[in-house]
């Protein structure tokens, strides 16, 4: 199975209120060539909001890297960057 960019959107209470619901359309907004290289899932509260050091919700974890105050633009940019590296064969630095 070919490697994919793993995207976890936290759908916990705090993340939902702070905007996670807006992020569910991400898959539709991805460039088709990128989309097949990305796997997006929702996850229940990861507890990231409990530690201020993680920043503020909503949280999205992309290949193990935590994005705080996640917005569509921010998450899209990060996914595309990761996916491009995979497509271009430079997958060495991708992963948790």
């Amino acid at each position, binding site marked *: 199975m070919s490697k994919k960019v793993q995207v976890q959107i936290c759908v*916990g*209470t705090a993340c939902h209120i702070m905007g996670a*619901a807006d992020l*569910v359309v991400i898959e539709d907004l991805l460039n088709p060539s990128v989309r097949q290289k990305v796997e997006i899932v929702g996850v229940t509260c990861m507890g990231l909001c409990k530690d201020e050091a993680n920043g503020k919700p909503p949280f999205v974890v992309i290949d193990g890297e935590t994005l705080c105050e996640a917005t569509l633009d921010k998450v899209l940019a990060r996914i595309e960057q990761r996916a491009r590296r995979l497509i271009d064969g430079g997958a060495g630095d991708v992963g948790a």
Partner: protein
Amino acid sequence: MELFLDISELSLKKHGESVCGDQVRTARTPDKTIVVLSDGLGSGVKASILATLTTEIIIRMLKADVGLADVVETVVGTLPVCRVRKIAYSTFVVMEILHADHSYKIVNFDSPETMFFRRDRLIRPERRTTRIHDKDIFVSQGCLEQGDFICLISDGILHAGLGVKMNFGWGWDNVAEHVEQRLTDRPQCAWEVTRNVLAQTHSLYGGKPGDDASIVGILVRRRNRLVIFTGPPLERATESAIVERFLESQGRKVVCGGTTGNIVARHVGGEVQVDMKTVTPEVPPIGELPRVDLLTEGIITMSKMLELLEICDFNAAALPSRRDGAVLLAREILNADVIHFIVGQSINEFYQNPDLSKHISIRKNLIREIVFALNQHGKEVTVEYC
């Protein structure tokens, strides 16, 4: 067998009147359930007052454990009589059911005969006639079984269509046949049948009822139980025992809360699978977990669920058809008769953050609100905090 009496009462008021001259009261005590339907002579305010007096007196006396025969004697003896028509100002039918052995007694004073259905077929239990104060009182008694359906009706149902769509009105036999047909559709709740009969009554009257019309449906069915686990317990050490007890409990099982879901997932050795198709701007998505019938987010979903219950007036059929956590949770709750909440009191500090636009900090208060509303609507609710 644990039987539950699912009771639904619906009335139509005579066209042009401001109140219904029929009155229905139900009361449940630990030992018995009492249902009274009274039809005040005529219509409007006077009929309503007479019927209200009748039902209230009967209910209060029966709740005070006065024997049914004494109650009927008192009420029949004191009901005022119309000087012109020489008939009592109100008629009534009372059904009393004892919880211990599910035995019932139906006492009827001048009301249409109560309809009794067993295994979807109309049966006519034997009726004894006794005379009290020179008036005929019909009494029938027996034992209820699972699946029985009993219909108490006022004569406004029988007269539906009189002179509009039918020469002699809908009539007892036709109404009974109509109910029988509805029962073959295996209704989940009594309301499905009463709503249908009343809609038909309204239609036969051409939308302008010529009389007050009431129906009380009593469906004898198995008691539906539901357990809702919401919020992580205060003590981590107790988690395992609580989850085990939750999973072993009778009835359907619902988890409200992502963190609570994660706790349960750890114990069942699974992982929460979030169904992103169910997310809406207002309600977070639901998840799936082995041995759990429904897993939703906590505070937002439960608040929205309470809102939905109030909007749809606690009728499952009036809930929106969309599939989100709040609708599914409301459906679980409306389908249950007995609900137990296991409420963890551990607090997520971030919920008190001023950046959050909504007030989500106090789970306990929300649970109190939900419990109050459910109690008001006949649900048996218990709560334990952990």
